[in-house]
């Protein structure tokens, strides 16, 4: 099993979710995060004082899939989340040791 972890621009979430549904992936966990890579932040001003905001809002999508599905999942995300502009984000694929469904105690691939 693999954990496909993607950091994407927040407004792309709906598109990514639909792209995953199209390839048969229906479960995922989504977190609001902040971060930056090589995309610089911007300057804001509050009551006369300027400050730099480095951390930009992003959304993190996490899906655990069978090894065989990892690549097509990642491809779907990359295609849906791409805008071509800086700050599009990244996808990571991480090995998963095991998975358990809490309701039924199933484990392994049946739990996905």
């Amino acid at each position, binding site marked *: 099993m693999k954990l496909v972890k993607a950091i994407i621009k927040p407004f792309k979430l709906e598109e990514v979710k639909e792209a995953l549904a199209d390839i048969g992936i229906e479960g995922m966990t989504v977190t609001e995060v902040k971060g930056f890579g090589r995309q610089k932040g911007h300057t804001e*001003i*509050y*009551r*006369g*004082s300027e*400050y730099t905001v480095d951390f930009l809002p992003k959304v993190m999508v996490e899906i655990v899939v069978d090894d065989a599905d990892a690549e097509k999942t990642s491809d779907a995300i990359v295609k849906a989340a791409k805008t071509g502009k800086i700050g599009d984000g990244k996808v990571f694929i991480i090995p998963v040791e095991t998975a358990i469904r809490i309701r039924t105690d199933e484990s392994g691939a049946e739990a996905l």
Partner: protein
Amino acid sequence: MKIKKTLLALLLSSSAFLLAGTVGAQELPVAEAAEAVADAVSFEDGYAAFMDSPGAAFFTISNLWLLISAALVFIMHLGFATVESGLSQAKNTVNILFKNVFIISMGILTYALWGFNAMYPGFAEGSAGVFAMGSWFDVDASVAMMTAEYADYTWYTDFIFQAMFAATAATIVSGAVAERVKLSSFMIFATLLVMFAYPITGSWQWGGGWLSARGFYDFAGSSLVHGFGGFAALACVIVLGPRAGKYVNGQIRPILGHSMPLATIGVFLLFLGWFGFNGGSVLNADPYLVSLVFVTTALAAAGGAIGSIITSWLFLKKPDLSMALNGILAGLVGITAGADSIMPFWAIITGLIAGVLVVFSIIFFDKIKIDDPVGAISVHGVCGIFGTLAVALFSDAAGFGIQLIGTLSVGAFAFVFGLIVFGLLKVVMGVRVSPEEEAEGLDIGEHGQEAYPDFGTARTR
């Protein structure tokens, strides 16, 4: 009026004597005679006779208007609570709300216990008009106190209207010291400020004291409420120090307010309440004066907003919402001394100038490391002085000299009171939370509660 006031003072002294634990006043023989006179016609009969008379109509409407105004001034406390919490961090929200709940409760109670009579004592002929003792406010119902013999409103209306004003002085301070003040020290200071200091300066003008004797003019309290609160706040902030991390390496680091919607709600509530604050200060339902005051109040608020918007857009690069909000308040504070004497055109000018002033004042105080999270010192202190002087500049109600003397004396008194009392509190019990508590948030430290538990506590520094 004078005989009534003297009788009143005597009646009050004897009432106070009966109440254990308040000011020790002596039962005077004249008081008993006065009570005997009042007893001759019963209150019920006298009151009924009055309500049948032609004067009852205007009295009833005026009294009602004053009561509505009291309710409007009351809602300003919700305005203060929301504007202060909106401009502060989420982790301190409960603390700010709590302080505001305490202030309105303590304010009304201490005003009843002491302040009302200390502020409106009826200074005796020849007295310096500087200080009077307070006492429990309630009186036996009488024609003298509950009909047009007293004023265009009853004694109770007078009390409740003025009581709502009293607490606003303390809430001005609560904004300036937010996010690092120790709750217990603040509660003690606010109580002393509202109970003792506010009635003293109030008596100088509205209680017939030395300022009113010299022609000072402060219609609804640019100096007596706002200047007073603003300069007490300044003293407290000096004693307290800035928030941790605010001024670092010669730089001013912004500490963002957590809810602009709350702050905006607050300012609109304050604007609404100001119709009662100024409108009720006419002290009756006179159609010309009350309508004039509504107009000047609204025009000054609008002028203030535009003044701040233009100023912040030109000098601070972007139109800052929090500055626009402060601008509305600045305009309102600015017109408060002269809402019934400054004509509409000049009311706009007054507001515009206040709106410009407040932006520069906020920047200035940050530059000299006076940390005021909500701009209270600038809105109320600086614009309070300006508003008082505006009476001389834009109307003929008073001369510049006495306005300057009046506003500076009130401000100085509040400032010195703040320095001494808050300074003493600092020595005796400390006025500031620990650095750890300040970092974690006063909601957890002082109250063991979170304002937004589902979202998780913001531990931003």
